[in-house]
């Protein structure tokens, strides 16, 4: 592999802000990305993840803070001076240029000799497995092929940093899984440093070395996929990580990193993720996988089944409590809608969060 990516140690976002008029799209974001890392920026739409990427690329000027590549400040440079590679959401392939010309565009802009351009484009073509398609126009390619051209175009310039803006969002489900593996393979083969924007937590969990969860323009949590999956630091991150049951209750007691909640008379015990004081409102967050139909007793709550769906190995159902809480649960046996059940949570997997402060954060 002779596509050699420029060497550097880290990219640093230093208190970066971006305002759109009165709206703060990005507030005081600080982040360090090390060489060869695959970082996913994860969050719901409007959380500022694409804004972050566009600020790094230079497509949006920052309105506060700075971006550093080792000791060089890059946020004051124009996009064409930064030398980063970028894969756009709709690919943004040049419709009037064929595959070869699209991939070679960046090298041509840099005034490289034709022989070098040809050689590097050939390598990139084989890296993304598009040999034989080089004379087609983007309009003649399938979505997955266009995606590969967009990736090849971004890496052929040997950028210190590859930026990807929801690159898989326009592909169908099967192709998305396939390209996900491709992106990881290319990242590993090149030893690239990648910042990957997505709203799909599966994608982030499976691809990234570290995930940055953004919400309302603020970094909520940074961690490895395992850390985020198992130990989200806030209720909204937990929500995003698949904790679909959020049971509001009162803190009955705390002990050594654990908390017991009183939820509609039932006692739910779990791992405290934030500091809690007895008597205050709090939430128990439980994944549907960890809420099973079972016996009455500790860590169980009575509910009435609303719907039940067969999912092959097991059943997934929805239910509600007398106090109006909604549940999504799992069951090995079929249960009739309308029947009364006890839903039991694994107390090692229940997370307890303080009630979020209303308004911002």
């Amino acid at each position: 592999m002779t596509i050699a990516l420029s060497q550097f140690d880290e990219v640093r976002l230093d208190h970066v802000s971006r305002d759109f008029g009165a709206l703060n799209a990005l507030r005081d974001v600080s982040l360090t990305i090390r060489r060869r890392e695959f970082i996913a920026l994860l969050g719901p739409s409007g959380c500022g993840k694409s804004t972050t990427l566009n600020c790094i690329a230079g497509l949006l000027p920052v309105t506060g803070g700075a971006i550093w590549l080792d000791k060089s400040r890059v946020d004051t440079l124009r996009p064409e001076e930064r030398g980063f590679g970028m894969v756009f959401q709709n690919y943004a392939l040049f419709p009037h240029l064929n595959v070869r010309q699209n991939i070679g565009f960046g090298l041509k802009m840099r005034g490289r000799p034709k022989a070098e351009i040809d050689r590097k484009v050939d390598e990139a073509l084989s890296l993304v497995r598009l040999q034989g398609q080089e004379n087609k126009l983007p309009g003649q390619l399938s979505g997955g092929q266009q995606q590969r051209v967009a990736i090849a175009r971004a890496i052929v310039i040997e950028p210190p940093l590859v930026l990807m803006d929801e690159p898989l969002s326009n592909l169908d489900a099967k192709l998305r899984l396939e390209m996900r593996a491709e992106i990881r393979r290319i990242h590993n083969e090149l030893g690239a440093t990648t910042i990957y924007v997505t709203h799909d937590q599966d994608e982030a969990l499976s691809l990234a070395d570290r995930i940055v969860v953004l919400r309302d323009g603020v970094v909520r949590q940074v961690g490895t996929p395992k850390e985020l999956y198992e130990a989200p630091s806030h209720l909204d991150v937990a929500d995003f990580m698949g904790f679909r049951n959020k049971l509001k209750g009162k803190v009955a007691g705390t002990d050594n990193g654990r908390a017991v909640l009183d939820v509609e008379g039932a006692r739910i015990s779990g791992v405290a993720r934030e500091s809690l004081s007895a008597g205050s409102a709090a939430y128990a967050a439980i994944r549907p996988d960890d809420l099973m139909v079972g016996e009455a007793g500790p860590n169980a709550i009575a509910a009435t089944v609303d719907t039940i769906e067969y999912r092959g190995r097991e059943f997934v159902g929805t239910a509600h409590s007398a106090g109006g809480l909604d549940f999504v649960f799992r069951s090995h046996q079929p249960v009739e809608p309308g029947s009364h059940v006890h839903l039991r949570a694994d107390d090692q997997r229940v997370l307890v969060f303080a009630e979020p402060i209303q308004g911002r954060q």
Partner: protein
Amino acid sequence: MDALAPTAPVEHGPSLRQRLAARGFDAVTLLVIPAAIFSLLLFVYPFAFGFILSFEPKAGGDWLANYKRFFSDPFLYDTIGNTLRLAIPVTLLNLVLAVPIAFRVRLMRRQRLLTTILVLPITLGTVLVAEGLLNYLGPQGWFNRTLMTFGLISQPLKLVHNYWGVFASLVITGFPFTFLLTLSYVTGIDPALEQAAATLGASAWQRFRHVYLPLLMPGFAITFCLSFVQAFSVFPSAVLLGEPAGITRVISIAAATAAFEEYDYSMASSIAMIMGFVQLAIVVAVLASRGLFYRGPASGAKG
């Protein structure tokens, strides 16, 4: 990566350039300036100049002298009536013909041939149409000959150098214009709406009356305005095909006469201002009545 050489840190907070850019003013926006200056110089300035000049009569007198003269001299003020007598019937006729034809042509697969034919008189222009009609509609022309051959008339109709010659030329050049505008509005409406109305039991007439007409009314209003304004400014055909000293002495003839025969640019400007004012008045009246009709996207959910 020499482009990434360290740069001196700049102070925090947006610069003037950033603040302007946030309001949409940057280098790209400046590209509009040449055209804007051009438009101010050759469109806005002459209009303003003409407006002021119209209050500075060449022959002296008070500032309204030109306008007083215009509205006291029947040879001048009659031109408004003459022009309206041509422009309003022609515009209405063109629109009344254009709407059903557009609805029919909408269903055609090969529209392009017809639209190409119809674009011919617009492209050829009023002068050529006038010259052609002089021969064609003349007493010895093919039109009168055909009517006489079929025994529809015994004497050649007098169709040139009078009202009807100008009328015919305004139909020949005006109808295609009105039609193509109407067609673009009619084809802009989602055919699913008509199909939906049909499944709900609406007859062809009901579909037109209750679905198409309300959606198309704004388009028809604009078409009427543009067609009327074109017809109201009739000039070469009124001279060549009409009776420029009599019934087809239209307002643009009066303006051109003032400018190029009397060299009274002040009076000519006054007449041009009156011409603009009448056009504006009719347009405003039509567009104001648009308020009575549905306003919004005509294509349903697609927006």
